[in-house]
């Protein structure tokens, strides 16, 4: 059990405090964007392209304008008059808001109908007639790089191909040399397919422009309200939207997972319409629109290679990635890292030669890609290294747990410099894997497996021992559109000793209202119950880059601790004044300062705060407030050891996850209940891509599973019963030793499942199947490998 320094009443770190935010959600009092209703509000619906690639010959709005309640139909040509028909992406690429002549992917926004009711807007949408001239889309990212492929981005002057960028890390020559001389080389082509976050709340907004005061309030589903405010000012500054007159409000958010980081055309159209008509405009997308048009995740084609000795020592790895970004690079990565943090792909293992190179390409698919509950592109990296590690173990006939133990970076070797340039802060990988093996009963399971295999039954055990990289990030390397990736906290303690704290991040279910209060409670001794946490309103909260990539605790959580410590410094001064002693004679114990050697002489934090308003020392600023903008010195490197046990029905290929043990190490834990909850959720979002989810397109660019009828989000039936636990290796550079956890399971989970399935199938010589691994793929692989031949 986690050790707590504070009492349950204070509720500092380590307490499984029940969540403060739950009261409203369980009583129907949450406040999501679609719950907002403003006087005179108009409704927007969007006409979308049925084609993946087509010229727009005409848009006929005549019938639509006859629909009762329809006010106007906005096209790209209308926006062009205000130069609002294009916008930048977060990766400094460009994206149409509405097209003037060509559509580039199926479900792309073509025009928007504005009406006095939701139903009238939909009727208007149905009445708009668009004439298209379809063209042959480019759907295969490999073929897109063919010199003969048509150039898709003809809007970019001088663009002669579909290549977006090249990026690399590591030492190419050194790695090549190690590969040339290695005993064993493993090489595997893998596809980490295109998937979708499917937060249960879709995206939407209410744009409310006040023509009299030239002020925009933008209520929207965003994980990064402050950054969005700046983006709006940059995109629409030329029409008079000045940043001091823009307020972005992110109300309760019904799940984000990365999908609510980008700026989608719908938001911009709503702002433009509100700006023009001076009325609030609501846009809430349907699930199908969300699934078909909003940012996808993943879609990396990876050639992964590993070089090792026949004794099982990993010597080098090499990765070549082809990233299919669709119509535009609308990813949400830090500017200097177009491949995200994929270069964490050397994993938890001790070797010093690696090379990663990647190319990104345009196709006629929807733009992206965001993370899916994962730090920037780390899931793709972990899938590659953990699959390779298992393949290596299999190839040389060594147990995969033993091989991992042999190759782990040792706990005394931290900080550890990775061959791709990262400095891992801390870790104890051996302890994590040992604990997972003990909990699952590894040796007994291997014995059972051998017996089952002898009887022809299929049972597999899969391991994943991953290192995450989160908490972006240090300002020397990390920015989005030039804005450094710090984050912030502002704490105001009221005269009666109760506080409000505001942050630059934005919870979408992570429980910030509870955990941030616990951090402040830990540092100041004010009960967490008396600390109100507020996020998401750019008029009141300090600037920050938002919540994604498991960055909130590493950045804003750190800011909360540092701001609290600033307040404690002030409290010491006030206490010295009140007790008439020198500051050096005081000692801090949670919630009070006392005189060394005379503990009966003390002042509680509440007494001190009251004095800050009623009896502060002359010459000192009154009040009890502090703000901190935290620039992390390094990223944090959470890790985990996951073991999955599967049973497979040989005849049908049906896969049953019998056990799944997850041991996470996220450093010091703020609230074990919430951390465990995050692990549960992340694991279900691991089984999802491992076994069920993939956005599938045909050659004409049609999505084949663009609704929740056929895009398989796991239900309670598909979701296994998770067995969770932890080890604790604090981050040495983080003020409270925490590392972040929300995404570790999504990152580490899929390869554990894939490795277990392949382990079960390995007696037939099957070495790899791309995720999602479905019963059909299993059956097909078994058939191809002669499992049904008699």
């Amino acid at each position, binding site marked *: 059990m986690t050790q707590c320094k504070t009492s349950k009443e204070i509720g500092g770190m380590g307490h499984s405090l029940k969540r403060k935010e739950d009261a409203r959600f369980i009583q129907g009092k949450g406040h999501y964007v679609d719950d907002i209703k403003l006087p005179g509000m108009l409704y927007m619906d969007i006409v979308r392209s049925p084609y993946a690639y087509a010229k727009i010959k005409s848009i006929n709005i005549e019938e639509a304008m006859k629909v009762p309640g329809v006010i106007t139909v906005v096209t790209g040509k209308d926006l062009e008059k205000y130069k609002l028909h294009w916008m930048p992406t977060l990766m400094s690429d460009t994206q149409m808001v509405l097209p003037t002549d060509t559509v580039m992917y199926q479900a792309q926004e073509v025009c928007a109908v504005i009406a006095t009711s939701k139903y009238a807007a939909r009727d208007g949408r149905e009445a708009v007639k668009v004439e298209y001239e379809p063209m042959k889309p480019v759907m295969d990212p490999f073929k897109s790089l063919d010199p003969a492929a048509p150039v898709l981005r003809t809007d970019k002057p001088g663009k002669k191909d579909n290549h977006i960028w090249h990026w690399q890390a590591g030492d190419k020559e050194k790695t090549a040399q190690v590969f040339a001389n290695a005993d064993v080389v493993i090489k595997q082509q893998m596809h980490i397919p295109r998937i979708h976050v499917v937060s249960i709340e879709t995206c939407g907004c209410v744009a409310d422009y006040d023509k009299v005061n030239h002020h925009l309030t933008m209520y929207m589903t965003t994980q990064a309200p402050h950054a969005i405010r700046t983006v709006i000012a940059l995109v629409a500054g030329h029409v008079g939207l000045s940043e001091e007159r823009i307020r972005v409000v992110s109300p309760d958010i019904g799940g984000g997972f990365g999908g609510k980081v980008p700026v989608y055309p719908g938001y911009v159209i709503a702002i433009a319409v509100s700006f023009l008509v001076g009325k609030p405009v609501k846009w809430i997308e349907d699930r199908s629109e969300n699934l078909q048009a909003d940012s996808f995740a993943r879609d990396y084609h990876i050639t992964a290679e590993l070089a090792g000795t026949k004794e099982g020592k990993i010597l080098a790895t090499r990765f070549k990635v082809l990233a299919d970004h669709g119509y535009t690079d609308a990813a949400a990565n830090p500017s200097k890292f177009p491949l995200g943090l994929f270069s964490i792909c050397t994993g938890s293992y001790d070797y010093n030669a690696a090379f990663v190179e990647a190319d990104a390409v345009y196709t006629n698919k929807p733009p992206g890609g965001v993370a899916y509950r994962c730090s920037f592109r780390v899931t793709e990296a972990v899938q590659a290294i953990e699959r390779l590690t298992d393949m290596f173990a299999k190839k040389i006939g060594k147990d995969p747990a033993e091989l991992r133990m042999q190759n782990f970076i040792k706990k005394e070797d931290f900080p550890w410099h990775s061959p791709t340039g990262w400095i891992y802060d801390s870790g104890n990988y051996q302890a994590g894997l040992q604990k997972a093996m003990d909990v699952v009963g590894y040796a007994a399971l291997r014995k059972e497996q051998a017996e089952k295999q002898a009887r022809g039954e299929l049972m597999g055990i899969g391991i994943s021992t991953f290192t995450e990289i989160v908490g972006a990030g240090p300002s020397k390397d990390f920015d989005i559109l030039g804005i450094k990736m710090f984050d912030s906290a502002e704490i105001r303690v009221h005269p009666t000793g109760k506080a409000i704290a505001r942050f630059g991040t934005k919870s979408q279910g992570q429980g910030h209202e509870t955990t941030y209060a616990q951090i402040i409670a830990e540092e100041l001794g004010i009960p967490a119950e008396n600390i109100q946490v507020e996020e998401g309103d750019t008029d009141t909260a300090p600037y920050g880059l938002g919540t994604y990539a498991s960055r909130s605790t590493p950045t804003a959580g750190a800011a909360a601790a540092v701001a609290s410590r600033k307040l404690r410094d002030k409290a010491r001064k006030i206490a010295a004044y009140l007790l008439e002693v020198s500051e050096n004679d005081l000692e801090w114990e949670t919630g009070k300062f006392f005189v060394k050697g005379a503990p009966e002489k003390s002042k509680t934090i509440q007494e001190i705060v009251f004095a800050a308003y009623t009896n502060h020392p002359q010459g000192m600023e009154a009040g009890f407030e502090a703000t901190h903008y935290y620039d992390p010195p390094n990223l944090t490197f959470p890790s985990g050891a996951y073991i999955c046990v599967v049973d497979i029905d040989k005849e049908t290929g049906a896969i049953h996850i019998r056990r799944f043990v997850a041991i996470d190490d996220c450093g010091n834990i703020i609230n*074990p209940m919430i951390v465990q909850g995050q692990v549960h959720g992340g694991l279900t979002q691991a089984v999802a891509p491992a076994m069920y989810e993939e956005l599938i397109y045909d050659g004409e660019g049609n999505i084949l599973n663009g609704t929740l009828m056929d895009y398989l989000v796991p239900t309670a039936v598909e979701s296994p019963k998770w067995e969770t636990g932890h080890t604790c290796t604090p981050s040495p550079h983080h003020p409270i030793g925490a590392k972040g956890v929300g995404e570790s399971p999504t990152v580490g989970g899929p390869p554990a499942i894939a490795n277990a399935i392949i382990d079960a199938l390995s007696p037939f010589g099957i070495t790899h199947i791309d995720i999602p691994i479905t019963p059909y793929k299993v059956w097909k692989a078994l058939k191809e490998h002669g499992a049904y031949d008699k």
Partner: protein
Amino acid sequence: MLKKITVTVNETPHHLEVEPRLLLVHMIRELLNLTGTHIGCDTTSCGACTILLNGKSVKSCTILAVQANGKSITTIEGLAPEGGPLTPLQEGFKENHGLHCGFCTPGMILRATELLARNNNPTEEEIRWGISGNLCRCTGYNNIVKAILYASAKMRGEALPSTEPEFV
């Protein structure tokens, strides 16, 4: 052509004139301003809009307001009086961390309300199948199942299971 209907929502009768095509979920959210009932999809897949219609859980996105004429509806707002006491399920969800973002929660709770009304001692397997028409993207369902088991114990007047996380 508007149709006159009378529906009792959370024990209050409402006389409304609605378009025949108006979905029940829009009646609840837009006409009655009860925004605790959510919309998460357009294919009756997610269950965020689940309410009780004459005590039976239904997805209110796939039923017309006129079909509710003369019937009684319970939404999340009607389960417990404002300020409490909470129902065993509401309490169970809070005590067992059965929610993260809260968007699926009202639908989950109403679905589980019917489930426990029919069987106040379900197995874990019965609960998982019972809520399989309701999607949650945040929690991984384990704590939702735990919350429902907690509520069922409370309804039977038995000792409550531990709400401590099994996080070894």
